[in-house]
């Protein structure tokens, strides 16, 4: 039942042979889309149904109620949300100013920025966490705190956030805008707050929502470094309680969906992709 078997005819199948092209969507189009729809929707429908299963033909919200009764649910979800906010703050206060100033004063450093933004793609999450734990065995206030995770999460979000902000910044004539604002008496802080940030709104909101989705679902770093985040909690529940795990999958699908809806509404319809799988 995998997707390639369902589309046996390759390229020619997708175009109808009739010379005056029919206005409709065509049989070939449905022949591609229908199996795809089944592949993508079936697991979702099954997971929702499974999460409502109470055994012996009974359906209800027992799994969701059981989840709400677990004290780890609010604590792990809250921790993941806090980490998401902290990572977003790191992007805002570390990456964004550096990028603005690089564009203004040191455009020659652009290749170095590009290089750093590519590194997280080349060094997979599991390799980075191996390197981090080899290098840093202390101090305890750093590696013992769950907020240590903000460091790898910053790099997890970096490639996408860099790309989005770079596109946004390139569209602005930063030098002229800054000069104009400064000649009107604005300081650098005012320039950034009143001129640059409003122009970057779409790119910023998009990156921050994506960061939220990525951090809430992130498992690799948290699991290896032994912090109890939301994804680690899901995994733990799933080892014993199948219906509750399905319920948590539904919840996290809804969270991802909400975040992406926000990105698509704010951005101009381009779909973002990031994170470790």
């Amino acid at each position, binding site marked *: 039942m995998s997707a390639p078997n369902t589309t046996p005819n390759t390229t020619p199948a997708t175009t109808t042979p009739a010379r005056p092209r029919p206005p409709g969507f065509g049989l070939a189009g449905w022949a591609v889309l229908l199996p795809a729809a089944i592949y993508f929707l079936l697991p979702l429908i099954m997971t929702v149904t499974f999460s409502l299963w109470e055994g012996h033909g009974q359906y209800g919200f027992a799994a969701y109620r059981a989840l709400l009764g677990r004290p780890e649910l609010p604590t792990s979800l809250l921790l993941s949300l806090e980490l998401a906010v902290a990572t977003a703050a790191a992007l805002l206060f570390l990456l964004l100013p550096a990028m603005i100033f690089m564009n203004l004063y*040191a455009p020659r450093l652009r290749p170095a920025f590009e290089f750093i933004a590519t590194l997280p793609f080349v*060094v997979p999450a599991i390799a980075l966490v191996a390197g981090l734990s080899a290098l840093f065995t202390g101090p305890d206030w750093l590696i013992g705190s769950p907020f240590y995770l903000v460091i790898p999460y910053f790099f997890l979000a970096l490639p996408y956030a860099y790309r989005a902000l770079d596109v946004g910044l390139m569209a602005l004539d930063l030098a002229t805008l800054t000069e104009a604002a400064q000649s009107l008496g604005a300081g650098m802080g005012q320039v950034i707050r009143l001129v640059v940030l409003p122009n970057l709104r779409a790119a910023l909101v998009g990156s921050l929502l994506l960061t939220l989705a990525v951090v809430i679902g992130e498992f690799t770093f948290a699991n290896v470094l032994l912090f109890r985040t939301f994804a680690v909690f899901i995994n733990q529940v799933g080892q014993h309680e199948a219906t509750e795990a399905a319920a948590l999958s539904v919840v996290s699908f809804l969270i991802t969906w909400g975040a992406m809806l926000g990105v698509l509404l704010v951005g101009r319809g381009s*779909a973002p992709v990031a994170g470790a799988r």
Partner: protein
Amino acid sequence: MAPRGENLIRARVRAPVAWLFIGAFFAVAAAFMVAPTAMLAVQSIYGDDGFTFAFIASLGDYRYRVAFENSLILSIASATVGMIAGGLIAHAVLRPGAPTWLRSAVTSFSAVAANFAGVPLAFAFIATLGSLGLLTTMLKNLGIDLYAAGFSLYSIPGLTLVYSYFQIPLMIIIITPAIQALRPAWREAADNLGASPGQYWRMVGLPVLAPSLLAGWILLFGSAFSAYATAYALTSGNIGLVTTEISNVLSGNVMEEPGTGAALSVGMIVVMVGVLLISTRLGRRAARWTPRR
């Protein structure tokens, strides 16, 4: 000229703040990204007794050879499925006759599904097609026993099926701009010259799309190759992949020295660097056909 000069002075006065921020970014990147990577390289060739090739050589052990093989097969299979299915779906919904609602539905669903990965995705598939999954049981009641027929979700084909759930949408997102850049004029010119649709695709469409398709394939390969959470939640590390083997070393599940984990990581990084080099090269060729804006 006075205000301009004043601005220059102002700019120079502000520059220290600018360098502070740029420096902070570089410092963080050096300390927490470059240094850990360098540490892996060092760890993979230095043991307790100094310089050694033992760790690198251990990559040839049966266990780790299988892990690299599994990772490569899984990445190649899921990237190929993703490229073909994603390309066909993107092409289908971008056709002139396709309804607009369908187009936006596919776009937004792709954004969600491409980012819906890891542990929740694994459990969604366990609930559906696991040995006690809903679909498995339903089919069993209909007389179709998937697991008796040799299917298993906890195998490389099973993992490929699960990975496709984020690979296909990823490809749709990557390839859509390239398909949109196919100019209708090319199609019309081919039609006027008497080309069949098959000929158009073989001689015009696919050659133009090929670099983008390959670049997309390589990105998908990378995303599958470095994936860890989905496989871990699905198989609890029972199927050896490079990522799960690294985590086994890290968590002390296997009696191996850290050097082995470092050597595995370095092996992954080497593969990913190769992937990136090829994709940048192909991306440059693809850029030839995209309209300049």
